[in-house]
């Protein structure tokens, strides 16, 4: 029906543009909220969630209690829910999406599903219906080999998965973390100071668990489950494995201060969980008899903590270390890696003694276009114009010819660059290049690529 017709029939119609990205984000938030029931939550885009509730139902007084809980929370969020339980993920999914008729038990419910539940391609589905096979039960009564021969191997596989004869593995949104501490509250916690206090206790519990395993955490994730069914996660990372309660709490405080959209308890949190998804070995610290660690905190530890704190505040990409990359292309010769990942030190090329620096101190990436007066085709530049100022070149060295990495390209092409180190009349040193030789390109352009000290 065209929109104009719909509006004519229902004048108070609310029209919202379709936004699949927002829908996906919302589904993800719902999935995160559902981790209160089970850690294994899988997305069934665009509008479904699959929960593996094996061994989780007793917390809610059985399956019915769990479904009531999900139903009431999601209904409060304005969602319309269709749900089903099944022995396998595929069966539960098909029951939730296609069940029309009531059935006494799960097995017969699956058999009464229409063949559309197999979600085959339109051609195969039509062929099934034309053959008089309307329900899964009709199909299951036939030999699988015949089905595969007539309707394709996909139909046979889908059928076997639906009936539970073939495995239908779940792809959970996140894998369950190795260390988890969580707390559920009878009365929702509505104040942030109280929530922070509980977070401190949870961090203490998780760290005690880590200590028993001889591990330290590199990544801590706190999830706050609101009573309305939504959840919000806050994560902090450290550059080295840690079991320092104070450090983790300082990082959490830093993270919460830096949140653009502050943590809102709403009507209160009814559950909090602290997960440690990433562990690394960390030996126990020897304590002195009179108290205090034998090895005092070194300056290296202070620096590591600074890196953690700044990375928590400005993002892990904000604090970086340099690593060398093996290439001739100047702008690709360095990698700036997050310092929190503690990249191993790489060897740098040793400069030739007695030579001036051949690479600039500051590099423009991308290079900036300049206007150059130079001899054609291979002469050095005499004068160039950059950022509305003209620079007369007094000294130059070059060209240093750097070919493109043709072996990385499919067409084995790419322009050669001729680099010149130049000094202008006021003593400033620049790195200029002509992008392309005159044989390669009719009118190659000049660029400034860097500034020397």
């Amino acid at each position, binding site marked *: 029906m065209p929109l104009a017709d719909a509006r004519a029939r229902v004048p108070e119609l609310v029209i919202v543009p379709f936004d699949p990205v927002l829908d996906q984000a919302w589904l993800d938030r719902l999935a995160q909220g559902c981790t209160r029931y089970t850690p294994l939550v899988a997305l069934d885009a665009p509008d479904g969630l699959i929960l593996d509730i094996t061994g989780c139902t007793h917390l809610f007084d059985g399956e019915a209690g769990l479904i009531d809980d999900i139903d009431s929370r999601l209904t409060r969020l304005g969602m319309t829910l269709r749900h089903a339980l099944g022995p396998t993920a595929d069966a539960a999914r098909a029951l939730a999406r296609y069940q029309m008729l009531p059935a006494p038990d799960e097995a017969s419910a699956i058999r009464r599903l229409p063949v559309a539940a197999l979600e085959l391609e339109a051609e195969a589905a039509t062929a099934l219906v034309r053959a008089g096979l309307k329900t899964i039960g009709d199909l299951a009564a036939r030999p699988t080999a015949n089905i595969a021969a007539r309707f394709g191997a996909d139909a046979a596989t889908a059928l076997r998965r639906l009936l539970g004869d073939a495995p239908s593995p779940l792809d959970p949104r996140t894998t369950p973390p190795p260390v988890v501490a969580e707390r559920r509250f009878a009365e929702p916690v509505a104040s942030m100071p109280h929530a922070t206090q509980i977070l401190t206790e949870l961090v203490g519990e998780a760290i005690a668990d880590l200590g028993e395993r001889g591990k330290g955490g590199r990544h801590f994730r706190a999830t706050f489950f609101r009573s309305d069914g939504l959840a919000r996660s806050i994560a902090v990372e450290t550059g080295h494995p840690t079991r320092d309660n104070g450090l983790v709490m300082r990082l959490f405080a830093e993270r919460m201060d830096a949140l653009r959209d502050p943590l809102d308890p709403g009507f209160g949190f009814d559950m909090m969980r602290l997960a440690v998804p990433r562990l690394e070995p960390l030996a126990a610290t020897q304590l002195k008899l009179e108290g205090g660690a034998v090895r005092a905190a070194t300056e290296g530890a202070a620096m590591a903590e600074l*890196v953690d704190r700044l990375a928590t505040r400005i993002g892990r990409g904000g604090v970086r270390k340099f690593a060398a990359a093996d290439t001739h292309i100047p702008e690709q010769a360095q990698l700036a890696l997050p310092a929190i990942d503690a990249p191993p030190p790489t060897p*740098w090329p040793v400069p030739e003694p007695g030579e001036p620096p051949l*690479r600039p101190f500051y590099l423009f990436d991308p290079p900036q276009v300049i206007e150059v007066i130079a001899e054609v085709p291979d002469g050095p530049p005499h004068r160039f114009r950059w950022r509305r100022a003209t620079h007369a070149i007094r000294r130059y060295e070059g060209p240093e010819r750097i070919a493109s990495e043709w072996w990385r390209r499919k067409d084995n092409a790419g322009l050669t660059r001729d680099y010149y180190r130049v000094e202008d009349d006021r003593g400033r040193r620049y790195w200029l290049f002509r992008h392309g030789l005159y044989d390669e390109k009719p009118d190659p352009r000049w660029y400034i690529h860097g500034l020397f000290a």
Partner: protein
Amino acid sequence: MRESSQPLAGLRQRIARLAATGGPESRPAEGWLATGHGAFDAAFGGGLMVGRCHEFFAADALDGASAAAFAALLALRTPGQTPLLWLRTVDAGRRTGHIYAPGIAELGGDPGRLLLIETADPKMLLACANDAVRCAGSAAVIVESWGKFPLLDLTAGRRLTLGARDAGTTLLMLRLNAAPTPSVAETRWNIVAAPSHALAADAPGAPAFDLELLRWRGGPAGTHWRLDWDKDEQAFRDTALSGAVLPLAARRAIHPLGAEAA
């Protein structure tokens, strides 16, 4: 009046006590960032004092690379593997260029010591700088800013300086494209690129710096220095044959190609 005079007297006593002990300003420095240039270091009692704030101005944006390289080389000259913290805003890469590690390696420094901290805005830059100077164990903390930095008023500068003094870190403020303003820095420099000593075939030579001492808390200002960076010795040197540049220029005007002048 008697009520108010009591605290006043207390304050006077405190001031007298501070004056007697010399106050926090007189705490001796734990060392110097030396340039390796004998006369330069001797003039300042060993180099630029550790645990203080030093400002490097590049009044012209084009001299930014010189000022930055001078500060970086000064810090990377120190032995050991202590990191050099370099704080800048994310838009600095577009304005003055990205810090190029192979270029630092070419100057003889170890780029692996560099810890680059890029913040979204100057406000966060100042906040991170405050944390960075309070962390002992760095070769130096370089804070690079562009243009007028109104957030860095006397109070903010004082806070940074106190943090650096308490932790014993050296703060090198890199003020690109900015005019010198009053501050609490120990020394304040204006750095300009100097013409290098030409190599064979009139090629640009080793980095050369023109330094002007604008202010020094410990003595007279106004001295000028011209230093060359000698990467093999890892030290600053006198510019060799600095007078030789002028005749070359005159000859170049006649023979614009200039290659045969050498």
